[in-house]
């Protein structure tokens, strides 16, 4: 006999009533579109010389950020790299704050004091974006240690690239987290390149993170990082494990970045056709098709697209109109007293 759930599922004909559900899927779709539009805008603004300094885009990698943020609870902590715009936006930090920081305006997330590589919004659980490769893996361990010590249920999630698996801090952190059984999730976004060099050219094993998991007594987890549903489900399991006090997870997500490493990089080192092949599996395209196939009205999807476009347009205008930071913040917040005095 069919249960009520079966009937509902048959009615929807869709799979939208599964463990993820329609609401969560629309949320993750929206997150991916926010990242796509904001990152594309950052690129356009760079071409207009309105984004200064450097910037590292996550175009093509949106599903990892959306899937993990979708699985996070309030209070969970994100630790990002310089390629951190996506994870920052995914936690709900306003687009204007992110673009403002990239454009080095007073309305930026850190008023221009950090720059694009260091996006931080403690109120949103974004505990910083770190630009020294590997530095934040041990830091995420420390935040997880505090949760363990305090008996808090929050989990620290640390995002990094494939290239990061070859630095010592990665290995120190993995061992440390495993030995102390810390509630931390290490997420390797394998986009196939460390800056300009293919990861395979410099790594002893084919899968830079997954193939190292066993060295720390961890399960080998290698997933499709372009499918937000897969990312979400994998994340859910890792969160459950962490919250149950069963220790860390290391998850390798296969994905691809569409742009160069940073704004200055035309990415000429990539073999012909590689980018086009990955674009066939574009995370947003995959997800939009799935939503349609599951019976979500096209209008709902295009409304989200339009809404997000408007948010990014409005944010852009607000940033263009925003003043540069005032000079008096040069000397603030070096020390906890708010100032910079090192002598009397």
């Amino acid at each position, binding site marked *: 006999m069919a249960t009520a759930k079966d009937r509902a599922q048959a009615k929807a004909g869709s799979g939208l009533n599964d463990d993820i559900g329609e609401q969560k899927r629309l949320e993750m779709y929206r997150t991916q579109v926010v990242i796509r539009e904001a990152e594309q805008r950052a690129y356009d603004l760079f071409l207009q010389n309105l984004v200064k300094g450097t910037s590292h885009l996550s175009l093509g990698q949106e599903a990892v950020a959306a899937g993990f943020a979708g699985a996070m609870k309030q209070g969970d*902590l994100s630790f990002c790299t310089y390629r951190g715009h996506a994870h920052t936006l995914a936690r709900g930090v306003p687009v204007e704050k992110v673009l403002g920081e990239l454009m080095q305006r007073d309305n930026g*997330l*850190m*008023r221009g*004091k*950090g*720059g694009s590589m*260091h996006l*931080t*919004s*403690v109120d949103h659980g974004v*505990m*910083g974006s*770190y630009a*020294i490769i*590997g*530095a*934040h*893996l*041990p*830091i*995420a*361990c*420390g*935040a*997880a*240690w*505090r*949760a363990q*010590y*305090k008996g808090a249920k929050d989990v*620290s999630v640390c995002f990094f690239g494939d290239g990061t698996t070859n630095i*010592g*801090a990665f290995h*120190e*952190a993995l*061992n*440390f987290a495993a*030995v*102390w059984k810390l509630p931390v999730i290490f997420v390797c976004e394998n986009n196939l390149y460390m800056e300009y060099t293919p990861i395979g050219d410099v790594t002893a094993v084919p899968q830079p993170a997954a193939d190292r998991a066993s060295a720390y007594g961890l399960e080998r987890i290698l997933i499709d990082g372009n499918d937000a549903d897969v990312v979400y489900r994998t994340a859910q399991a890792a969160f459950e494990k962490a919250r149950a006090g069963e220790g860390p997870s290391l998850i390798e997500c296969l994905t691809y970045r569409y742009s160069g490493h940073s704004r200055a990089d035309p990415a000429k080192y990539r073999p012909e056709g590689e980018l086009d092949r990955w674009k066939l599996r574009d995370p947003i395209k995959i997800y939009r098709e799935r939503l349609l196939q599951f019976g979500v009205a096209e209008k709902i999807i295009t409304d989200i697209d339009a809404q997000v476009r408007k948010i990014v347009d409005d944010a852009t205008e607000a940033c263009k109109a925003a003043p540069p930071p005032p000079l008096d*913040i040069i000397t*603030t*917040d*070096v*020390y*906890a*007293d*708010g100032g*910079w*005095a*090192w*002598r*009397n």
Partner: protein
Amino acid sequence: MAELTYRDAVIRGIAQEMTRDPDVVFLGEDVAKAGGVFKATVGLYEQFGPLRVRDTPISEQAILGAAMGAAMTGLKPIAEIMFSDFFAVCFDYIANEFPKSRYMSNGQVKCPLVVRTGNGAGSRFGAQHSQSVENWCMMIPGLKVVAPSNPRDVIGLLAAAVRDPDPVIFLEHKSLYATKGEVPDGEIVDSLGTAKVLRSGKDATICALALMVPRALEAAEKLKAEHGIDCEVVDVRSLVPLDTQTILGSIAKTHRLFTVEENPRLCGWGAEIVSIAADEAFYDFDGPPVRITTPHLPLPAADILEDIVLPTPDRIAETVRRSLGS
């Protein structure tokens, strides 16, 4: 009042703060069950238990990174780096992470932690286990740096460091661990950024830090006894914040300045003090300021060699005497 070794003062200081505040936690290599390679943490594991006093793997980056993550999210960690020379393998945290996170985040991120470490020469350990690295730390905006010279200051400055909302590098001198001093009973809390005049005098100011403090005091007694030269000895104690007022006040009185530094010559803290004094007290001077330092060398291991390179009471006294022309 009790007589305590510098080593036992470290234990008492940590215990005082861990007793006061349950958010104070302590981690490092061999610090818990073994009580530390210098036996400066004996008994803490037994007193505070395995959740608060934790042995780590040999992973200096993990130790400092974990301390930072814990500090950012509400704990008050004390991390031990066994030898200060090992700062070189975890310097990212000291140079890039602890001191810059607050600034880069426009004040959102805090980093209230203490890194304790065994610093300095005298143990005949050679060039990689004997360095005085206070100058490595002093040059980084955002850090605080202290180096006590006696047991009472160990407790007081350690307490001040733990209670301070900024990252503090706490340099314990390995050759002072066995030295003794009078320590009052009860809680001791000092303040960072304060130098102390340990001996007053009218003819010359000698600024010293850590192991160089007892040597400067010995030199001062010798100068008085043998040459009638009356030196004022200032224990700098805290390099950041730096108590320039106490130092400049002493120069205004004595009109001469000598710094005694264990660190190698280039970019030592004495150069900074001389520079400040030259800018702000030039007309107080009756003669050139003089830096007495370890020469710009890696440290040799053999006792006879190591003893020659570190400033000794004799070298300090002789340098002061010659400079004063007596």
